[in-house]
């Protein structure tokens, strides 16, 4: 019995409460928007709609982006604001990552391409797609989580830390 408990504790070295609580809060945000406006959010489409304010390229000027860019930008600014509010309330300790800049930049470029090609990210396919019991989203999530686990291990093995 205590052996099983120990095994569980090793895969959750930091406990699970804040993960679960945070996850539920994320869901409440999604639900509020869904119930009041009938809109299914996703953070990565926000990238394209923000670009649509500046780029004249036809792809970015499509009706779907231009008509939704106001609320999608509001959603993005809301995310930044919410994390800032939480930081202030919980003592005001700002935090900076130690992950190297080139990992963030090159990884970010691939995240930008991949989420737009696949039409969704962790929030769109991951949360809303799974909540919709969408087969397409389930396929996409299994692929990106699986590939990311392999890549993160490969990077650890070649000795890049962090």
């Amino acid at each position, binding site marked *: 019995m205590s052996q099983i408990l120990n095994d569980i504790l090793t895969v959750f070295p930091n406990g699970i409460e804040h993960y679960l609580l*945070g996850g539920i809060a994320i869901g409440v945000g999604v639900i509020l928007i869904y119930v009041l406006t*009938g809109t299914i959010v996703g953070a990565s489409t926000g990238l394209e709609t923000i670009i649509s304010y500046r780029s004249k*390229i036809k792809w970015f000027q499509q009706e779907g982006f231009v008509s939704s860019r106001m609320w999608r930008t509001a959603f993005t600014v809301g995310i930044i604001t919410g994390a800032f509010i*939480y930081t202030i309330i919980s003592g005001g300790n700002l935090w900076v990552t130690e992950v190297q800049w080139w990992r963030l930049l090159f*990884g970010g470029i691939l995240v930008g391409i991949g989420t*737009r090609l696949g039409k969704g990210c962790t929030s769109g396919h991951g*949360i809303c797609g799974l909540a919709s019991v969408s087969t397409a989203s389930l396929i996409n999530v299994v692929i990106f989580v699986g590939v990311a686990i392999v890549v993160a291990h490969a990077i650890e093995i070649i000795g890049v830390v962090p």
Partner: protein
Amino acid sequence: MNSERNTVVVTFIGGIIFGIGLAISKMTHPEVVLDFLQLDDLGLLFVLGGAASVSLIVFQIASRTNRVAPITGKKYSLREREINNDLIFGGVIFGIGWGISGICPGAAFASLGIGNYVILWGIIGMFLGAYGHGILKEYRD
């Protein structure tokens, strides 16, 4: 017009709650996401699982009613996408990027909110990637 303004207000407030959730669960820290991907701390499963479960209950109930959303008059629908090569390749490319950086779009923006200015490298990268994809689409069509 009023409905458009109210939609913006609601998505902003929803975004705030969403951002608070990302901060509570430390998804704002690429290190925590990389710990999950390296299978050292599986807590992320509870973040995704928690968010998807509560959303699932509401999505499934609402989409089975004939009610419409009060602000927009839109019918409650479910998210459905076509299963095609783009969905697969998009997942692979996103997975490589996520594994390298530990960032995804929502979490990267939230990370900016906790003062992590270094994440701007990642945010610039995501915009470059999304822009590059748009140019690709332009030539393809």
